[in-house]
Structures are given as structure tokens and as C-alpha cells.
């Protein structure tokens, strides 16, 4: 079981500051959603934690051990990245065998079973697979490796709705059968929301939020209905954002919905992760 402590991490690419002084702790056995807009620094953060690129300053400790170039710490992690780090000429089955060399608890039987479920041809070369199937091959590899912490960077990239649903289900099944820390970076927040226990939001390379999804839901609520009624209700309350469609309006309001006296004509919903994300990251 592994806890990752990220301390004052900064990274720049030329003049572009990708990460600024990020301090964060990833607790063990928790499913994290790493959220942020394009270019926010999510992949950079994951790549640094996994020793794929190096930070300009700051430190990462895995179970108290500095992770930089340290096999003892790095061996507890696996990252399913957007990019392919295996030789493209390898067959899918060869990629599984290669990973099995590195991860002592690698479950080859499970990898083959998932390959069948996804209808992934394990004899095909990685370079011959479509983008979607290449993602599937990497997903299976990540789920089968049984590492203590598994990072998924845009795991559902190029996957159809059925495959995406399969991935979410298998991630939960895996988490239940062998608890580990999953860090999932995705833009499909609504889809993954049911999976995520804790959300980490990054904006312009800075940590904006690190909170349990339950706590996020109680941070605010949305009211929908006739625009005039919504406007009247919203008066004097802290409105995070508003959506208007024809004569209907939705207002996202900060506060506890249970302590409010809300008119029956208005529909009340708990704040979704996506609404909060949009509100937080809109510049």
C-alpha cells in the first residue's frame, strides 16, 4: 500500500510554466480524479510522479522514500499514459509478457480474459492497432499489473461508449477485489464521476481543489426552472454560474440546499462534479 506525497513541485517547458509549487498527498486505496482543462498540467504531474520526466524543483515521496530514480519507490507505480513507451513492433501479448517481467504480481490470466472481453487481438502488433484498441491494450496492462498505485492518463481516449462503460466497471471490480490507488485523468467528468472518490483539480499548473466528491456535492446545489423564479430565488445568494436555455434557467448556488426554503416550482439538484469543475476552471 502506498501513499504519495508531492511537495512544492514545479516544472516549466521553456517559458511555459506547466506546474507551479504543487503540494498534494495521494492517500492509499482511493480512486482519484485528476481534473483540469487542456494544458492545465495533469499529464506533466503524472509523468513527473512516474519518473518519465523530471521536475525543476520539489520532491516526491512514495511511502516516505524519494521517488527520483529509485526502483524501490517506482516499482509500486504504473502509468497508462497517452503515449506508447513500448516498441511499436511488439505484439500485445509480448507487451503483457514484458510487463509481467517487471511486476511480480502481474495477472496474465486476467489480462488474457480482459483481452477476450474487449475482443482485443493479442497477436496483433501495437503499431497495427487502432487508437482505441491501443488504449484498451494499455488499460488491460495497467489493470493486470497489480501495482499499488495506477495512473490512467486519458484512458478512454478513442474508446466507444460500450468500451468506456466496460472500463469503468472493470476499474471498480478491480478496486474491490484488490484495493489500490487509481488516479484517473479524464475530460469525460460526468462519465467518470461515479468512479471518483476524491477530485483533484489543477488550473494553470496550480492545485485548485483536493476534496472528497461527497464534500463537493454538499458544497452547493443547482436550481432550475422559469428564469424569473430562478432569478428571484438567487437574489442575495452566492451564484457560482448560470445557464439559460430559452425561458428556462439553471443557477449554481453555493451553500447547503437542505437549510434553504426552496419553492416547489424549482427543481433542485446536488452540485455535480462537472458543474463545479466548469465553475472553478472558467477563467
Amino acid at each position, binding site marked *: 500500500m502506498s501513499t504519495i506525497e508531492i511537495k512544492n513541485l514545479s516544472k516549466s517547458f521553456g517559458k511555459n510554466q506547466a506546474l507551479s509549487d504543487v503540494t498534494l498527498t495521494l492517500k492509499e486505496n482511493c480512486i482519484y480524479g485528476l481534473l483540469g482543462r487542456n494544458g492545465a498540467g495533469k499529464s506533466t504531474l503524472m509523468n513527473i510522479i512516474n*519518473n518519465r*520526466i523530471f521536475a525543476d524543483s520539489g520532491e516526491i515521496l512514495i511511502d516516505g522514500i524519494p521517488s527520483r*530514480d529509485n*526502483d524501490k519507490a517506482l*516499482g509500486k507505480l504504473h502509468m497508462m499514459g497517452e503515449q*506508447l513507451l513500448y*516498441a*511499436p513492433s511488439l505484439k500485445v501479448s509480448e507487451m503483457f509478457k514484458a510487463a509481467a517481467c*517487471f*511486476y511480480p504480481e502481474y495477472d496474465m490470466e486476467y489480462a488474457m480474459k480482459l483481452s477476450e472481453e474487449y475482443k482485443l487481438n493479442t497477436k496483433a502488433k501495437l503499431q497495427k492497432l487502432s487508437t482505441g484498441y491501443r488504449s484498451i491494450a494499455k488499460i488491460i496492462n495497467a489493470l493486470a499489473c497489480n501495482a499499488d498505485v495506477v495512473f490512467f492518463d486519458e484512458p478512454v481516449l478513442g474508446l466507444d461508449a460500450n468500451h468506456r462503460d466496460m472500463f469503468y466497471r472493470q476499474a471498480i471490480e478491480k478496486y474491490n477485489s484488490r484495493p489500490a490507488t487509481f488516479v484517473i485523468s479524464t475530460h469525460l467528468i460526468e462519465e467518470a464521476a461515479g468512479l471518483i472518490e476524491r477530485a483533484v483539480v489543477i488550473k494553470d499548473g496550480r492545485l485548485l481543489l483536493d476534496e472528497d466528491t461527497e464534500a463537493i456535492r454538499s458544497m452547493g446545489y443547482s436550481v432550475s426552472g422559469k428564469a424569473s423564479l430562478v432569478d428571484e430565488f438567487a437574489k442575495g445568494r452566492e451564484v457560482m454560474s448560470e445557464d439559460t436555455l430559452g425561458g428556462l434557467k439553471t443557477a449554481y448556488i453555493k451553500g447547503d440546499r437542505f437549510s434553504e426554503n426552496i419553492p416547489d416550482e424549482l427543481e433542485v439538484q446536488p452540485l455535480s462534479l462537472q458543474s463545479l469543475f466548469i465553475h472553478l476552471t472558467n477563467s
Partner: protein
Amino acid sequence: MTKHSFTASYKYQVRRIIFMLILTLCAALVAEIILVAIANYGIDGRLTLEGIGFPCLDALSGLMLFIYGAYFLAEFMNAGAANGVSRTTSLVSAIASNFTVSAALALFVSVVSPLINSLSDSGSDIFLLEFIYGEKKFFEFYGENAFVVRIRFFIMCTLSVFLCAMVGILFAAAFYKLSRVGTVIFTLIIVFVPAFGYPMASISLAKRGIDLDSCMKKFFTEVERAFGMAHVNGSQAGDFVRGGFMMLLTAVVMGFIAWLIVRRANAKPAAIRGD
């Protein structure tokens, strides 16, 4: 570096190189047999294997390992990065796997090649190392045990092939670390500095009364002497111990420089056509 991460990297790497090595050697053997048969048929109308042989197979092996060392390093570093292995471990195991493959190839050169050469009329096996350090027959003629001579040849061959692999690894490490622009500049330097830079420097220094050619000649003579090469002192036998030690030392220095280069190098994902 942990024992497990090193063993895992080493196993993966040896498996990858050995497969390519066997493929290349089989292709070379088949090509040699076909070419000799065709050539003999063309000369006297008979399909025979007369004159078959692998001259300078040790040099060819060195060239092969140079290519493998250079070709596989990026793949090994990336595979390590994908599976929670540090750059240091990936590099150290790459060096170890290249050494293992060098020894395997040297064994092939020392044992199989003389057997193939014995198929020809001359039965001679010509090696670059023999040119440098003295012929095996010379030592056997002067009473040395044939087995000892062969073992010595095998050790020297392993070290020389390993040195070639390390040169490949060093080049690959530089390319792995560099950005795209840096790679282009580095390539241009490698190509153009010896081709144009040297003559220009030679002319420029000659105007100041410095003879660059003789300086370089002196330098290479000293290098040859340091490596115990026979023809420098005109004798038929070189200094094996000195040569072997220098090869090993040079390989270690190259490995250290390669480590300095790759220890903070970002993982470079594989390029896939069409993506």
C-alpha cells in the same frame, strides 16, 4: 537499483537482442551459402560451397553490436520508464545484456566460424583481432596450448565486441537525451566536423606552423600502443593483457558518460506511423 528491477530489465533486454541476433546471424549464414554457391556455379558450372568462409567475422560482430547497442537503448530506457524502473537500472542492465550478447557472439565467432571456414579448401579463419594481436597459428607454432590460444581469442573478441556495443550505447544515449533540434545539430556535427572541420583546422593550423596531421598520427600511434596493438612495434604478437584492460576501461568510461547523459533524460515515446 533493486535486484528485482535489474533482473526484470536484463531478462527483457536479452530476450529482445537475442531474437534479433539469431535472426541476423541466420540471415548472414544463409546469404553467405547462397552467394558462394551462385558464385561457384557462375565460375565452373558446379553448385559447391568451395571457398565459403566468414572473413573478419569478429569485426562484423563488432559492427552488429554497435548497431544493436545504438538501436535498442531507447527501447530499453522506455520499457523501463513504462514499468517503474529507473534510468540507472535500465542503463546498467542494458550494458549487462550487451555484454552477455557480446560473449555469445564471440563464442559463435570462436567456435562456429572456424568450423564453417574448414568447409573451404584453405580452412583458414581470418580475423581482424589476429591482425591486431597476432595470429593463433603463430602462438600454436611457438608452443602455446591451442585451447589457451582459443580461450584468449574468445576473451579478446568478447571485449572488442562489447566495446563496439558501448560506443553504440554512448551515441544512443546522446540522441535519447537530445531534443529534435539538438539531434539534427548533433548529427550534422558528427557528419560534417570530420569531413570539413578537420581539413579546415589543418589548413588554419598549418599557417601558424602546427602540423595537425603529424599530431593526429602521433595521437593514434599512442592510442594503438595503449591498446597493445602488435603492428605498432612491428612484432607478430600484441599485448593482450594491456589491450583487454584498455578495452574494458574504455567501455567502463563510456558507460559512465552514458549514465551521466541519461540519468535525467525524459522518456521519449515511440513514434507510430499514422498517429
